[in-house]
């Protein structure tokens, strides 16, 4: 019950590192030389709280607004509407404006592609020292180097790697370097935008273990964006399932994974392969493609593909409503049937 009240009166619990209320990000897209620009709702009314040491997983298929959420949270782009509070401080950002230094330090990001996220012309040490150089004028050059070397060892690389260039490393090692760089300013929040999807399975496990260790050591809060549900199940505390830019189901990972309620969540989870030959597969199959963001369907955006859809679904977008004390679902049928 406590969590429900917390989100309704929209006052952050004292120690929340991220408090997001109805975060929305729209893009204006030019569709033709003579037609007026169309609005793409890349992210629609996402609300959540994130606490130190916790992992919030954001799952959904491609194009569902996961990466837009990452860009809004890292303050690369301001939200079109909604409130974002980071570490107790309201983020008030205009288009094209840089966030204030003390906020910038709190949130760092790890990108999916470890081959594009490291500057090919800089050594590992130079990359790790850059954030300190730019934000901590009190740290001397030797101290910077010292800190960089410490961080290199912390993420499982060796000190002699410090003066090498990114192309000399494998994908997993590069992701370690990216993690080290993100941690140089001691942030409280790390946005992980599909951090392991570009890596081999065995390397994925290593990097995930590293992330868990670092979370314990520094009390980091993770926003873990992924489409790989087996990975999410392993590390997430809370889950947001997104479809077409909006959250369709939110709640603790344990509850959402044992009992997915929203039809989209069910379909998504049933598509995850399970390494158990004796388990009978009952796949919830979806028809069709996600709708075009330029031409959204009336009512529930999932209705055209939903196996539970009725005529009623085309009237109005279903709001996110609590079905248990901690799980919220945006579907009119879930409430009616109580449990499916």
């Amino acid at each position, binding site marked *: 019950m406590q969590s429900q009240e917390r989100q309704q009166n929209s006052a952050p619990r004292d120690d929340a590192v991220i408090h997001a209320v109805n975060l929305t990000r729209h893009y204006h897209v030019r569709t033709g030389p003579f037609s007026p620009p169309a609005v793409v709702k890349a992210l629609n009314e996402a609300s959540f709280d994130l606490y130190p040491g916790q992992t919030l997983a954001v799952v959904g298929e491609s194009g569902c607004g996961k990466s837009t959420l990452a860009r809004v949270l*890292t303050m*690369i782009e301001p939200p079109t509407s909604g409130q974002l509070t980071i570490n107790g401080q309201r983020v008030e950002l205009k288009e094209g404006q*840089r966030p204030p*230094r003390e906020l*910038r*330090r709190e*949130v*760092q*990001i790890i*990108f999916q*592609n470890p081959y*594009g*996220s*490291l*500057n*090919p*012309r800089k050594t590992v040490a130079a990359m790790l020292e*850059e*954030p300190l150089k*730019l*934000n901590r004028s009190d740290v001397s050059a*030797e101290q910077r*180097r*010292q800190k960089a*070397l410490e961080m290199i060892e912390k993420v499982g690389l060796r*000190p*002699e790697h*410090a*003066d*090498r*260039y990114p*192309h*000399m490393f494998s994908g997993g090692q590069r992701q370690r370097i*990216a993690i080290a*760089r*993100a941690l*140089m*300013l001691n942030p409280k929040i790390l946005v992980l935008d599909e951090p392991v999807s570009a890596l081999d399975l065995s390397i994925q496990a290593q990097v995930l273990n590293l992330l868990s260790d670092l979370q314990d050591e520094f009390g980091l809060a993770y926003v873990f964006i992924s489409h790989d549900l087996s990975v999410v199940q392993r590390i997430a505390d809370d889950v947001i399932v997104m479809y077409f830019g909006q959250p369709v189901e939110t709640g603790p990972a344990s509850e959402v994974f044992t009992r997915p309620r929203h039809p989209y969540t069910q379909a998504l989870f049933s598509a995850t392969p399970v390494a158990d030959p004796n388990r009978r597969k009952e796949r919830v199959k979806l028809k069709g493609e996600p709708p075009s963001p330029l031409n959204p369907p009336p009512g529930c955006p999932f209705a055209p593909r939903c196996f539970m859809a009725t005529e009623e679904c085309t009237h109005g977008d279903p709001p996110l409503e609590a079905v248990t004390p901690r799980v919220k679902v945006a579907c009119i049928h879930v409430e009616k049937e109580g449990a499916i």
Partner: protein
Amino acid sequence: MSTSTTAVAPGTFRYQFVEFWGYFSASRGALVGLIFIATILVVALLAPWVAPHDPALQNREAFLVPPVWHAEGTWRYILGTDAVGRDILSRLIYGARYSLFISAMVVLLSMVIGIFLGLLAGYFRGWLETLITRAMDVVLAFPSLLLALGLVAVLSPGLTSAMIAIAVVQLPYFVRLTRAAVMSEKDREYVIASRLAGAGHTRLMFNTLLPNCMAPLIVQATLSFSTAILDIAALGFLGMGVQPPTPEWGAMLANAREFMGSAYWAVTFPGLVILLTVLMINLMGDGLRDALDPKMKRS
């Protein structure tokens, strides 16, 4: 706390140079180019002591004397003389001073300005980009020689105005190349990461983006070098560039053109020197680009 495994500590300038030299000298072409250019530079600097004659001195007894390996050739004029009896070898040696200096200045000038404008255009986009690219399109729309001629005419004929004019004519290539490279790199994740680390516009442009855009620019610089030599020559030929009797390679080539049939040496040697210089600079540029690219480094 640096790893002192090698004789020279990493991170120092000396270390970087030793490393750079290792990669540069691994390319034989680059080495040959460097030696050739260095030789020409030394000869040009020592011209008064190396050249056998005064480059402007005309000998009325010796018009169009052929090179020494011809029956009529003499050791006095090793590469022969031109139509007014000046020693071609001496003129080539003195001419190296002008040709190399002019081309280097032209390339430097248009590269620095071009990179700056290109970075601004590619990084900020918007009206600034439109302004810069349209201005460059205007420059490109004129035949380059015509524009250079017009500029020199406005600025009064002479060496400095010729250099400025040719630098302006070369500018669009650098601007466009830089802009295109910046645009393709700008949205890469490492740039965003650097921005999140707190890098401002200046740092992103010059420290993060520019080094990653240098490869095509180095090649373009070596190509521009050769174009600059030829353009200066053309201006000189039209009386708008280097004024006679200054011994400049291109002007020598242009002045001797009418004797191409009867006295090939007056045209061949300046042409050959220009060709070799341009070729060697290109070879050196290739080596330079590879040596400066960390991706080519072996661990």
